[in-house]
């Protein structure tokens, strides 16, 4: 089982970068949707 740590590192990097990216766009999506909802409320008044 030599070099197992390199294999582990490789896959961790992949999952880490991917989840960070998905998290960031998810948050962007949420803020924009909230903003849209807030504006819609405002306009209705």
């Amino acid at each position, binding site marked *: 089982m030599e070099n197992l740590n390199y*294999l582990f590192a490789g*896959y961790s990097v992949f999952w880490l970068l991917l989840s960070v990216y998905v998290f960031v766009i998810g948050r962007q999506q949420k803020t924009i949707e909230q903003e849209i909802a807030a504006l819609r409320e405002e306009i209705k008044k």
Partner: protein
Amino acid sequence: MKRASVLRKMQLILGVLLFVGMLFSLYNVFIMVPTEQKMGIVQRIFYFHVPSAMMSFMAFFTVAGFSIAFLVKRNAWHDRVAVACAEIGVLFTTIALITGSIWARPIWNTWWSWDARLTTFLILWFIYIAYLMLRDYVGEDQRGARFAAVFAIIGTVDIPIVYFSIRWWRTLHPKPVLAGGEGSGLHPDMAFALYFSMAVFFILYLFLVATRLRVENSKMELEEIKRLHVLSTK
């Protein structure tokens, strides 16, 4: 908007496909595939490294395609697709570079080597970072979109020239040839795992594009509401 619901549906379907495919692919990579004899267990990085690299090319070709389409048709949506793909391309390039480097360390005994493929990838990374920065610095108007599209076209044409110039340079100064892992004599199980993983990465790519495009779509919607609001209050 109709586009929003299409994107949401795409995201959902691709998400389910991705989940199933990814589990199966991980099973392939860690359990099904035989361990490579020369390189040992580290070689298993291969099944995620190569598809990442391929998807970054895929992303950048999409960027170039949509940039040309934008310049010809001036459809703002084409430009949004180009940005989304550029970002995802940078993500995949980063993954490919880092996993490649981690794979290289135990096998070639070095983190980095200035071979044609590696160097080209690094330049590719820099070009698309510059692309994203250019958009940011011009501001989010028509002009930024035009500049970015022109830059994307120049960058895409530049990449093969970079590759050939570096290869020419390396043939002039021969360095120890790197042990090739792919290509000849791939065990059928390994080939299957690789192709399967490529398919899964393609789904991952589409999934990310759909997710990222939803953000762009919402942004456009928000701008639209703001504009209407300003008009109505005037």
